[in-house]
């Protein structure tokens, strides 16, 4: 796997690709996607030999953000891909590309109510059937934060002594803008 | 054909090896402890539920009812209350209860205590038929203790 080449391909698919300091945050790259590119991105990742570590949702404004975590068996390359759900709280499924996503998507549906379009069996997994509309991990109005509030603040006296210069500036506004466009 | 017989013989030999292990075990001494009759010595470092320490020099506990443990507890299972009394410096402890049904034995309360008034008890034989049996009144316990 040639990381530069892969990165180039990511850039084609995504709105932003940023390097992250591994020692501070525990992952290497942040990739911001639009929700219709998620499937293409997953296909690319599978072809490059990445495995799906995790799939989760974070409830922020303006919309719920779905975070895919990928890593590679051979080299250390931990990628977080993020995409905001569309205004119907929907997201295309990747469970036919990464079968392991099947349960993660069902769980996200349980906890956050994100509907994955094309999922073969989107029934409650962790929660009982009758709690289908419970969505327990959605934040209460008072606690709900904007997406910028949970992003790493760029300029800061390095928090950890061993951390090298703080990660590169965030490109988040772009993601938000894209959300507004959709 | 060769593998047919070799498999038979290696297989049979592996079975005999297994029998050797178990027959050796059959004649070796048992390792279990017959619990209610014999008991193993529990390490003094065992962390049971918390208890107030009775200090030998004063014959009393050292709790100043600051409530640090109460705030630190992840499961909110400690209740501490104190009151001001005439002629006594600081607050006097009036209530110190532990809801052991909720406690996860993390030890945060013991570590946060500014006067080191708390310690883990060594009790491990805790069985009961009601939840209320595990709502310990630590103040009463420390007063009753020798």
């Amino acid at each position, binding site marked *: 796997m040639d990381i530069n080449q892969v990165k180039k391909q990511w850039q084609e698919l995504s709105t932003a690709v940023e390097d992250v300091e591994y020692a*501070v*945050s*525990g992952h290497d790259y942040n990739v911001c996607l639009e929700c219709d590119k998620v499937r293409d991105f997953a296909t690319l990742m599978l072809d490059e*030999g*990445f*495995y*799906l*570590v*995790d799939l*989760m949702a*974070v*409830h922020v404004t303006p919309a719920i953000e779905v*975070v895919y*975590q990928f890593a590679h*068996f*051979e080299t250390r390359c*931990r990628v977080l891909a993020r995409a905001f759900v569309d205004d119907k709280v929907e997201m295309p499924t990747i469970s036919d590309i*990464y*079968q*392991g996503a099947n*349960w993660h998507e069902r769980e996200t549906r349980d*906890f956050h109510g994100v509907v994955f379009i094309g999922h073969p069996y989107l*029934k409650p*997994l962790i*929660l*009982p*059937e009758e709690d289908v509309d419970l969505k*327990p*991990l959605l934040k209460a109005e008072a606690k709900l*934060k904007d997406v910028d*509030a*949970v*992003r*790493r603040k760029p300029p*800061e006296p*390095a*928090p*950890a*002594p061993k*951390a090298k210069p703080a990660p590169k500036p965030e490109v988040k506004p772009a993601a938000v803008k894209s959300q507004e466009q959709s | 054909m060769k593998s047919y017989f070799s*498999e038979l013989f290696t297989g*049979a030999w*592996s079975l005999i*090896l*297994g029998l050797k*292990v*178990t027959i050796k*075990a059959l004649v070796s001494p048992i*390792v279990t402890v017959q619990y209610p009759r014999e008991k193993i010595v529990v*390490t003094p*470092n*065992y*962390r049971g539920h918390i208890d107030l320490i009775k200090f030998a020099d004063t014959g009393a506990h050292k709790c100043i009812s600051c409530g640090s443990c109460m705030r*630190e507890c*992840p499961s909110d299972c400690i209740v501490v209350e104190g009151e001001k009394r005439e002629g006594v410096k600081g607050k006097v402890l009036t209530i110190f209860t532990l809801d052991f049904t909720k406690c*996860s*034995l*993390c*030890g945060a309360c013991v*570590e946060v205590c500014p006067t080191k008034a708390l310690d883990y008890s060594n009790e491990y034989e805790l069985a009961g038929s009601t939840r209320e049996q595990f709502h310990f009144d630590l103040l009463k316990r420390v007063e009753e203790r020798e």
Partner: protein
Amino acid sequence: MSMDVKALEDDRHHRYVLNMGPQHPSTHGVLRVLLELEGEYAMNLLPVLGYGHRCHEKIAEFKPAKSFMPNTARMDYLGALIYNHGFAQLLEKAAGIEVPERVEYIRVITSELNRIQSHLLWYGAYLLDLGAFTPIMYSFDDREHILDILEDVTGSRLTYCYFRVGGVSKDIDEKFVTGTRAFIKRLRSRFPMYEDLVNGNIILQKRLIDVGELTPHICARYGITGPLLRGTGVAYDMRRAEPYSIYSKFDFEIPTGTKGDCMASFMVRFHEMEQSLRIIEQALDGLPEGPIMAAKVPKKLKIPAGDYNSSVEAPRGELSYYLVSDGSDVPYRLKVRTPSYSNLSVIPEMCQGMLLSDVVSAMGALDLVIPEIDR
């Protein structure tokens, strides 16, 4: 729960549905699997989860991050210290706390003891699944020694809450060191016995070889990690791939298999115990003196805004904590990626067309801890 059993049975009369669990001897906890059977062949499997869901992720959003430490131990009761380790590391990383070296050594030693303990329990329980009653007693005999050693230093026997943000709660002493060394010697002398009684046994080999074969590609698609992945020949171990703590200092091998069947993961786990012993030995030799707590751990642990990930190698595979912080001391979102969850999700594909007995061996090879899946 959700599979329409009636319809399935009526539609295809030659198939019927067998309900395995939630109380079944070989599901190890409250896992339920619906098996669609044709004769004794499982044509379709549907795991039903959630019987042990305890809302850990929700709980995490309601209290200071460091108060979540006891909860981590309750997720995987067999790898409690390793779960502690991952979480402590996450917060240290996030808050920028430098951990003293002695602490790292203690963490590695106790984590590896914990890993051996977990593998020993799996070893016995797996053989119980396969119908051998005796090995579990032998492995528990060994396991009790670990529990005694760990009890002496951590104070508990199963759901440890020993690690703290920036350190450990209690220093290890000479008794621990000698006890651990004695245990290493003992366990090494026991391995030949296990080889004779179990590993070489023809019946066991026949039950495991060529059953539930996985490939690296399947593992990538399902996110399978841990001994199952290593059984397919991929030497992927978080201790090597993303060396956390001080694992880069130690010389140890990553056992791998070739075929990816149950026997491969069985032997990987067995050899991992040996490797863990090696790590412990080296760590005991190099144990430095020093404090057991970082110098400056703020009482209120504020985590700078941003997202943090911490991955460690749990006994069953890769464990990742993903924390989103909004700058306060309470996590905005904490997601725990538990290895068994991804590992279990493969069984519909892994066990298709298998005999019922093989489904039991395949499920045992996954080394499931159900509370970890349900969280």
